[in-house]
């Protein structure tokens, strides 16, 4: 009896040990945003980033020193500026990428040229294609990149912090009195965003209402009159947070607009709010703050 | 023997009928002038006789062959045409332009021969432009350019020579000299020449036959002496013309 138990015990130990060993030496695999399965023999240690937000995410999850090359405007954090540049996100230098001998390339579906991504795939590189459009997408992206880079637990933690920070903003602001918000992407012509855009969702999260959420185009050009007609209570655009934006002057000619009358024209850092990356939480905080300021005036 | 015969032809362009039921017979050594007001279709008739425009009725023969059955190349060897040529914007030389006239005679896959070049040189000399071969066509005056074109036409060595206002834009001196020289040369070689002329006096002086186009297809033809009278020409130009004697010949003067 006792010898049988010993045999079973040893066998079990061997099986468990085998399973453990298998799991440790298992391929690292995730599915990217285009549905392709990306599978690496081991965690990536030579990563190319084809978008500034991806660079930020990689640093955020602790994989920053595994990046060997990044596209132009990968400017955050400071260490990212020292990375070898491999061109622009819409026109990158394949030769330079090749010479850096990457084992993982992280790309951006709508921002990178299709041809370029195709060539990289054809040359045999694993290309992880991302296309985050919501906060949840960013969280998932962080976690999956964490898996690929061997920072799974750190990534999960960071992503969780990221989500928590955003949830906190939502908690604080989303139930407050709705405020009509006009988000100005560009001044001349006047570009704004419709309800499908992630920034519009963030405005909702802050308890605001995007006055152009009903339009069909994702980034439509609108007339001055339509802005006047919809009478926003706050106008938000890109600039330096806390400073009066240079484009505010133009609105001051239209005091009938409530936002102008009550001086609720604010700038927030466009890199925070427009890059689908870790600083989105800071962007949300700033966005909710300025929307809230307009709330007081009623 | 007739070099070109037209039987009952009608030539027209758009609403303009140049001639209706016209019979024409071009014999070697003869020079014809086509006269008429602007817009009656003189140029159209010339182009039609040359086979570059379709006939509305009738038939044209070159020698014994129907014109429309000749190959382009054969036709180009028999009929040479001088136009009101548009400006050439490219840097072509005088020599190249005259050599173009030899095109119908140069075999398809060959280049010009020394004999072709000597023909070109001779014709350039005949129009007083010897040595101008390497000059750019655009560097010449209008009159000089016209003379180059005449040389090219001569180099084409065709039995039938059709010219659309050959000497307009030329200096007075060249008008008479060139016509005299060219036509004497063509006559001696037994060619048949047809010219569309604006100047009735040059026409009567240098041609031996006239073809008058009155408009609406009405025509009238014959030797110069027979046709060139006050009545015909006044009706042709719809303006009274008087005939005056000069130097044993005569000229016409609008009254």
């Amino acid at each position, binding site marked *: 009896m006792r010898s049988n138990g010993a045999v079973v015990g040893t066998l079990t130990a061997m099986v468990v040990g085998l399973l453990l060993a298998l799991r440790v030496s298992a391929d690292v695999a995730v599915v990217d945003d285009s549905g392709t399965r990306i599978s690496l023999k081991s965690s990536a240690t030579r990563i190319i980033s084809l978008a500034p937000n991806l660079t930020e995410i990689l640093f955020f999850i602790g994989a920053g020193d595994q990046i060997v090359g990044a596209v132009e405007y990968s400017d955050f954090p400071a260490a990212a500026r020292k990375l070898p540049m491999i*061109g622009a996100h*819409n026109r990158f*230098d394949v*030769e330079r990428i*090749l010479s850096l001998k990457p084992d993982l390339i992280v790309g951006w579906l*709508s921002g990178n040229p299709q041809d370029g991504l195709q060539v990289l795939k054809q040359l045999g590189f694993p290309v992880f294609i991302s296309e985050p459009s919501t906060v949840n997408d960013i969280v998932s992206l962080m976690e999956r990149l964490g898996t690929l880079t061997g920072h799974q637990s750190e990534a999960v933690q960071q992503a969780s912090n990221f989500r928590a920070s955003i949830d906190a903003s939502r908690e604080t602001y989303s139930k407050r009195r709705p405020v009509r918000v006009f988000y100005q992407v560009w001044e001349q012509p006047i570009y704004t965003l419709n309800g499908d855009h992630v920034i519009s969702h963030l405005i909702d999260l802050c308890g605001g209402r995007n006055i152009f959420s009903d339009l069909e185009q994702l980034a439509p050009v609108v007339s001055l009159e339509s802005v006047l007609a919809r009478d926003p209570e706050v106008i938000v655009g890109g600039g330096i947070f806390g400073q009066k934006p240079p484009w505010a002057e133009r609105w001051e000619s239209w005091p009938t607009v409530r936002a102008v009358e009550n001086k609720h024209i604010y700038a927030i850092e466009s890199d925070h709010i427009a890059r689908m990356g870790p600083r989105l939480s800071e962007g949300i905080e700033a966005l909710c703050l300025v929307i809230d300021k307009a709330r007081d005036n009623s | 023997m007739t070099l070109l015969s037209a039987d009952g032809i009608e030539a027209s362009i758009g609403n303009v009928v140049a001639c209706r039921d016209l019979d024409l017979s071009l014999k070697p050594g003869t020079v014809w002038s086509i006269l008429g007001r602007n817009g009656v279709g003189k140029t159209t008739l010339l182009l039609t006789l040359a086979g570059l425009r379709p006939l509305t009725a009738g038939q044209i023969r070159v020698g014994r062959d129907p014109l429309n059955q000749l190959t382009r190349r054969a036709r180009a060897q028999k009929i040479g045409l001088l136009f009101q*040529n548009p400006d*050439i914007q490219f840097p*072509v030389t005088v020599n190249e332009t005259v050599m*173009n006239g030899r095109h119908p005679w140069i075999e398809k896959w060959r280049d010009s021969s020394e004999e072709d070049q000597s023909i070109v040189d001779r014709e350039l000399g005949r129009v007083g432009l010897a040595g101008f071969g390497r000059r750019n066509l655009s560097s010449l005056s209008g009159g000089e350019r016209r003379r180059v074109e005449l040389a090219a036409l001569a180099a084409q060595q065709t039995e039938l020579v059709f010219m659309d206002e050959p000497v307009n834009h030329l200096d007075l001196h060249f008008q008479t000299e060139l016509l005299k020289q060219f036509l004497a040369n063509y006559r001696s070689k037994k060619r048949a020449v047809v010219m569309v002329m604006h100047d009735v006096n040059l026409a009567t002086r240098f041609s031996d036959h006239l073809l008058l186009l009155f408009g609406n297809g009405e025509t009238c033809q014959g030797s110069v002496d027979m046709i060139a009278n006050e009545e015909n020409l006044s009706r042709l130009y719809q303006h009274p013309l008087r005939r005056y004697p000069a130097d044993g010949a005569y000229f016409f003067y609008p009254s």
Partner: protein
Amino acid sequence: MLIFQTGRDSRRFGWVILFLTALVPVSLAISVSLGSIPIDWGAVVETIRTGKSSVDHTIVFELRLPRSASAFVVGASLALAGVLMQALLRNPLADPYVLGTSGGAAVFALIVMLSGLAYQFVSLAAALGAVVSLALVIFLSRDSGGWSSTRLLLTGIVMASGWGALISFFLSISQQNQIQGMLFWLMGDFRDRGPGLVHYLTLLVVLIASIFASRGLNLLVAGTLKAESLGVHTLRLRFAMLIGAGLLTAVAVTLAGAIGFVGLVVPHIMRLIVGPDHRRLIPAALMMGGSLLVITEMLARTVLAPRQLPVGVITAFVGVPLFLYLLRRGSRQEMP
């Protein structure tokens, strides 16, 4: 086979052809050797011998060589199309796009991009657009006398404007992420794939046909009627040139989007150097156009590496001063 006109001319032409024939392989060699990364040629040879892969070999054979080949084909096609267009329209200011072919190609390409179809269809659409545009021009400019150069030109200019308006419209209604791709295509740039058999064949076929038609083209310059009276089948010739130029333009836009300038300037430059005889002009323009674009493509990816510039920008920078210089020299020679 060819007997040149004068001794001096033919010697000069001989030198020019020799130079160009050498320029083609030299330019390709330069283009393959230079890039944003220095190549270890030892490694390349090693890979060829042993089959062991190396980055250097990959860069040379899978990136630079196909791009250079594309550049050559596009440059040669555009230059030849330019020669044909200039002869067809009897106008030295004509270029392959003057009849609106690049506009048509662009519109069709943009439609495919807007509709979200796979990007492989963009090339096909571009070629189709070039051909459709050409067909429209032929159809619309026909009158009782055939197609006069003036009518063709005017119809083409109007078509080009029409396409241009459509392009602006598409750009204005497209999404942000689509615009990137569209602008990329409109500025003209090379993919990293090489030319396919159909591109090579088209170039070859049109080249051979053009050389055969050279004498006729020379005569056409003197006037359509005059050429006809000298025995040239002008209708057939002009139609064939139109089709040939259209196909070449389609090849070019398929491989490289809308690259301007080459089709206008190269025929002009070569005409100033070897003269207007198409038997000389056609091969000379083809070789020059190909080599020029090979070099400019190399410069576009090297000069500010790793930043990659659109090729059309470099062509203008290189072509304009070259052209101006030759123009001044040429005009001085013309003075009697």
